[in-house]
């Protein structure tokens, strides 16, 4: 400075200070209280750090997102890493930060990791320790704040899925140092009295500090010791608590916990619907098959025009009878000729025996002539009897078949909705012609059409009561 023959300019001083300061504080770590905090639209963050007696201005460029993530607020104790820079135009120096971390959060984070390691090493998080959560709990034991959002969300979802759930609530503090002993007591009460099937430990979202009660070591041990299975649902999806790790089931949110607990009922509802579809499907197929068989059977000629069949058969009988009768005289003549021939041969061959033989032959001849007509008569009678029996047999068979058909028809009639109507039921149709099966398919004032067994009615809906 001795060489300086002239005064320094302001700029020269500031530049010299800048060079000197920035060389001296290239990397520092400062702890202090955030006394001022502005997040600029540009994404830069401006703040002041202070302690009991002094203040330091600072800036963190493009730090808005991180500041929000760490929930930076005025009054917060923070650790800041950065360097000291000088802003030449104003001759001011500031702490240019590369990171700002809340002191408490860092500490909590460390405690969380330590406890997680410790309990994990003890085997408290082992999958083999997890008790199964009942698929259809009869009574749900809820431990949460009576006035919080969690209980509202939980009950709303439970109600939406199934109205008939039984929930027992033990109101408890869910944040602050008083909370863990209350939560533990509630778990112990449910276990002692066995007054529920599953315990749900829940609270809505909040800051790390708000949720801290669920990272309590004693609470974790109480959950592990619980005889009843425990569901933990703390905060939002991204929040994890020690209670989540040690519980038998961790739900991301109170809503998710409710969904999980009615899963069994939901599945049963679906199973019942499938069964109904299968039953009606089988029956419809069956009826369709019977209907087809009935159509086929009733279109068979023997059944549609039975008299034709009988007529044709009796015609055949007449024809055969006639043929038989016309053949008989010819048969007699042939025999006669044969006899004449034998007679002439006999007479030629044995003239000596002529008389005796002749007499004998005369006798045979007369017998033959007597027998032949009566033989024809007998045959004719037997044919007549057969012709008479045939239609009778046919009629009997017809009767039997008609009987069977009638039985099929009666069975089919029972499937016909119309036959149900005659028993006093009625079908309601809406204006579109669709059957109204449930109360909530129609509305007050709707005009409906009722089908009865023997007629139809136009009716109006006065009120709708869903059951």
């Amino acid at each position, binding site marked *: 400075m001795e060489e300086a023959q002239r005064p320094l300019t302001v700029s020269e001083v500031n530049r010299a200070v800048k060079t000197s300061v920035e060389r001296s504080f290239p990397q520092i770590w400062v702890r202090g209280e955030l006394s001022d905090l502005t997040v600029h639209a540009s994404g830069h963050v401006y703040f002041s750090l202070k302690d009991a007696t002094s203040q330091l201005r600072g800036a963190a460029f493009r730090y808005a997102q991180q500041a929000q993530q760490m929930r930076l607020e005025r009054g917060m104790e923070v650790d800041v890493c950065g360097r000291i820079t000088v802003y030449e135009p104003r001759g001011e120096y500031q702490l240019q930060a590369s990171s700002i971390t809340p002191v408490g959060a860092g500490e909590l984070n460390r405690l969380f990791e330590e406890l997680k390691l410790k309990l994990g090493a003890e085997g408290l998080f082992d999958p083999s320790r997890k008790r199964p959560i009942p698929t259809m709990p009869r009574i749900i034991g809820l431990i949460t704040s009576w006035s919080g959002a969690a209980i509202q969300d939980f009950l709303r979802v439970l109600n939406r899925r199934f109205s*008939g759930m039984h929930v027992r609530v033990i109101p408890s503090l869910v944040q602050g140092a008083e909370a863990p002993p209350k939560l533990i007591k509630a778990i112990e009460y449910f276990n002692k009295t066995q007054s529920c099937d599953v315990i749900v430990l829940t609270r809505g979202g909040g800051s790390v500090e708000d949720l801290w009660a669920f990272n309590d070591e004693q609470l974790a041990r109480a959950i592990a010791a619980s005889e009843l299975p425990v569901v933990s649902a703390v905060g939002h999806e991204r929040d994890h608590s020690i209670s989540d790790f040690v519980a038998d089931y961790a739900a991301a949110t109170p809503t998710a916990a409710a969904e999980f607990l009615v899963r069994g*009922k939901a599945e049963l*509802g679906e*199973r*019942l619907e499938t*069964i109904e579809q299968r039953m009606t499907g089988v*029956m419809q197929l069956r009826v369709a098959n019977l209907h087809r068989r009935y159509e086929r059977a009733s279109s068979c000629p023997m059944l549609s025009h039975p008299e034709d069949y009988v007529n044709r058969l009796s015609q055949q009988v007449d024809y055969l009878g006639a043929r038989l009768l016309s053949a008989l005289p010819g048969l007699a003549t042939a025999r006669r000729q044969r006899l004449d021939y034998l007679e002439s041969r006999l007479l030629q061959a044995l003239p000596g025996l002529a008389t005796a033989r002749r007499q004998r032959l005369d006798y045979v001849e007369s017998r033959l002539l007597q027998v032949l007509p009566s033989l024809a008569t007998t045959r004719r009678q037997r044919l007549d009897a057969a012709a008479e029996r045939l239609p009778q047999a046919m009629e009997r068979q017809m009767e039997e078949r008609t009987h069977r058909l009638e039985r099929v028809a009666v069975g089919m009639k029972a499937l016909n909705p119309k036959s149900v109507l005659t028993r006093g039921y009625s079908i309601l149709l809406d204006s579109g012609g669709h059957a109204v099966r449930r109360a909530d398919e129609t509305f007050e004032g709707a005009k409906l059409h009722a089908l009865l067994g023997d007629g139809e009615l136009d009716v109006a809906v006065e009120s709708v009561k869903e059951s």
Partner: protein
Amino acid sequence: MEENKKKEEKQEIKFEEALARLEAIVAQLENGGLSLEESMAQFEEGMRLNKLCQAKLKEAEQKIERLVRKDDGSLSWEQKG
């Protein structure tokens, strides 16, 4: 309360029984081999059971109770109105 619990248990078992019966009926219907009259009877029983089960699932009464400490210091479940 003890009685209530027993009653609920009984209903629960009835539901399970009904469901098992229902599934047996469907299997029987699907296997065929039943006369028309028999399968009509089975079908009717199945539909009745199905309705019963659905109603049981949905129509059970909602109940929300809260643990309160009474004046004498004892704890009891109080129904939320």
